[in-house]
């Protein structure tokens, strides 16, 4: 990085918030994937004005800028693959407003998702999106990636809770989109455009988030099935009976065996699938709903159903699901986690195809995920130090994407395209899709300085 640029940056954000030592820069070279790229300089802005000045400078000088929050993404979206500036927004972490009258919160991008949830729950409100990394990840990153989570089945994903944004464009202008109302049809929906734009169209510096009243209670059940088909049939039947569960988490046979070997908690080793089902709402309603859920599971051949009678028992049921990550890396150290998603009636077929792909390439694959919304997480377990195996992984991943598309699904349900899935984007959106998206990018970022290499330009 040119010394003159570093000096300018120090002028904009104060010297101690510009970091240039190699050892420090290296720790901003990664996210939750295996992608890496060392930035030339790391900058920690505190205001939208500072972000705008940094972007104006970068735009003028043609320096790549990679905005990021906690760096927990799963698509390589924040990895500075072309060097340049890592723009870290974690110091902008104030919750500016929690408005119980209008059911909304105004926050800066660096607020940790769980911190926001705890804050609004104190006043009886609820911010539902719950990505797996919610204890670490930030709202800015959640919006940029349009993060999901297990509760998406009932409550939707991040975009369903973004009412308005303040965004700094790649040319350094401050854009305000949406507002504080649930209804707003004024002009193009730029809020939705920015939500999920993966840091390629602008840097989010403030967000107005929609909140809802906090559900009174939760009930949890765990059901064991001989086959994935049996579990899928139960999922469908539960909603036919008029129940919309909060979560429907599925674990396949490989996952079950891994978890049991790891925890020895008595999971049946011959099971084909385990469903973790949760309903929330008013107490009498959930008491009734969980009884129906249990009945449906039994009618459809569940070999065992457990309903948690206390918070401690609920924790026990969740213990298996929470241990999945730790359990599967016991097999092999490197975990390649995908999130290809299909319409939920195609889940059994997708699971069959995934298993066939794993077998074809001689790979170990554990499948778990959100059966209720068709968002599966096939995890391939490999060793990143074995190039031959990693080559097979790459082939398997491509085939897995094609399978999802053939089943009318999508490449990514919640992780985003980033750099990892960029080569496959045309498969899903087609030439026209790419042309339209590139046109939008061109208007906002004529010099392609913001997150270059991500999503569209792979």
């Amino acid at each position, binding site marked *: 990085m040119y010394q003159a640029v570093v000096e300018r940056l120090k002028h904009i954000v104060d010297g101690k918030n510009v970091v240039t030592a190699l*050892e*420090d820069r290296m720790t901003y070279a990664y996210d939750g994937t295996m992608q890496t790229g060392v930035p030339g300089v790391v900058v920690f802005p505190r205001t939208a004005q500072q972000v705008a000045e940094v972007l104006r400078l970068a735009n003028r000088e043609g320096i790549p800028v990679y905005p990021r929050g906690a760096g*927990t993404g799963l698509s390589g979206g924040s990895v500075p693959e072309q060097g340049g500036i890592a723009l870290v927004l974690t110091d902008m972490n104030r919750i500016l407003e929690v408005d119980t009258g209008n059911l909304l919160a105004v926050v800066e991008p660096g607020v940790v998702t769980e911190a926001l949830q705890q804050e609004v729950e104190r006043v009886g409100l609820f911010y539902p999106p719950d990505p797996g990394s919610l204890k670490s990840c930030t709202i800015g990153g959640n919006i940029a990636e349009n993060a999901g989570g297990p509760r998406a089945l009932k409550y939707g994903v991040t975009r369903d809770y973004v009412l308005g944004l303040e965004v700094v464009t790649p040319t350094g202008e401050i854009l305000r989109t949406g507002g504080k109302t649930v209804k707003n049809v004024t002009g193009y929906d730029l809020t939705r455009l920015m939500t999920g734009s993966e840091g390629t169209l602008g840097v989010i510096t403030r967000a107005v988030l929609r909140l809802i009243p906090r559900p009174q209670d939760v009930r949890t059940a765990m059901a064991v099935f001989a086959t994935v088909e049996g579990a899928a049939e139960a999922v469908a039947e539960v909603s036919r009976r008029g129940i919309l569960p909060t979560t429907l988490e599925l674990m396949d046979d490989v996952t079950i065996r891994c978890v049991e070997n790891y925890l020895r908690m008595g999971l049946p080793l011959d099971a084909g699938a385990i469903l973790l089902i949760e309903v929330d709402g008013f107490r009498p309603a959930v008491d009734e709903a969980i009884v129906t859920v249990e009945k449906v599971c039994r009618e459809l051949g569940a070999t065992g159903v457990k309903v948690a009678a206390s918070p401690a028992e609920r924790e026990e049921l969740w213990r298996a699901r929470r241990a999945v990550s730790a359990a599967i890396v016991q097999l092999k150290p490197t975990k390649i986690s995908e999130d290809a998603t299909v319409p939920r009636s195609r889940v059994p077929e997708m699971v069959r195809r995934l298993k066939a792909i794993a077998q074809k390439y001689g790979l170990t694959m554990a499948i778990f995920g959100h059966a209720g919304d068709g968002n599966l997480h096939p995890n391939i377990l490999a060793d990143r130090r074995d190039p031959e195996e990693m080559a097979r992984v790459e082939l398997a991943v491509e085939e897995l994407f094609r399978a999802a598309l053939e089943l009318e699904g999508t490449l990514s349900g919640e992780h985003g395209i980033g750099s990892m899935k960029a080569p496959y984007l045309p498969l899903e959106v087609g030439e026209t899709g790419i042309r339209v998206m590139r046109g939008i990018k061109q208007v906002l970022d004529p010099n392609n300085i913001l997150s270059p290499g991500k999503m569209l330009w792979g």
Partner: protein
Amino acid sequence: MKKLSELRSQLDRCSKCGNCQAVCPLYLETKREPLVARGKVFLLDNLIEGRVGWSRRMEEVISLCLLCRTCEVNCPNGVQVARLVLAARAELALARGLSIWKKTAFHYLLTSSGNLNLLARLLYLYQRSGLQSVARKSGLLQALPWGLEDKERLLPMVGRRAFARTVPPVMEAPGEKRRVGYFYGCMTNHAYPGIGQAFLTVMQANGVTVVLPPQVCCGLPALASGDREAVVKLAKRNIGWFRAAGVDRVVVDCASCGSMLKEYGELMGTREAGEFSQKVRDVAEFLTEEVDIRPGAYPVEMTVTYHDPCHLKRYQGIHRAPRELLHAVPGLALREMEGADRCCGSAGSFNLTHCRLSMRVGSHKTRNILATGAEAVVTGCPACRLQLAKGLEQGGSAVPVVHTLEILSRSYLGGKEMG
């Protein structure tokens, strides 16, 4: 103990998920990635691959860890972060050498109880002769470099005579049921002799004869600084003395020393060291599991809160035992604080090398303690005690910090002020 390159499988396990950010006391304070576990793991990986070397900055980054192991407990992949950091510090000590201060301390001061006694004596004179107040008032401490003013405040108030010099080598218990060796540690010996007295009171009351063999520093300060040679030197002496004393239990009242003694076996890899480590018990562990403990008859009418030392909860898995002991004391009420097991920030000499950051970490503890309204904080580690007391003092609070043993001891003796 393994070298860094032998711990490669540990580095490979890290998936960079960032869960460590949510719990690392240093990351929560600074929001800077080099301070969190995955940042260090990534740097160490690059170090092994030769993409970075042992620079000054690298040294500083590796020093910025409390070794509290909170990240390990929350790591989905079970990466042993503390082991990695210790291995890195050992390699660093070889590559760049230890500071002359640390070398002197580990190889001369701590290896001989006589030398440490002498230092404590000098410190005692400094603190009580009026020299300390002159130094503080004169502005001399501010004028000197190394942030001496902050560090000077962290020095413990030392006693006039070391604890070990005030007691006979064997304290026979009437109607002896057990016989144990007592490892009292440097902090009890020089700064908190009251803990040692309480230890003896509790053991006497429960029919346990206490043998006090000669002993030196457990070696943890040297281990944390990467000086394994010094640890081995210290360990050999301690092992020899306790073997000569012929005891089948080595009971410790310092969480930090306890965790170190329990690791001699793995560290040295000898049968002798392994057998020694097998004999080590923390005092709370010993009292709840191996003695049919009878609490004293005197009620201790007060409300206390308990702080879990990292070296007790996460290194030795002990957190129920001290609470059980406290619950058994008549009249005593235990009110849990939020984050009872959050690191206090002391972390051995971390509070000297990174004084301000350490006190910032500690400030959360102070707040949580005060929020309980407890009349005293109880803990099982003299090093935490020093840090907790400084934090409370800075927060303008007079709440005393005491060892679990001191509460128990009061139930046998009655009355008397604590703190």
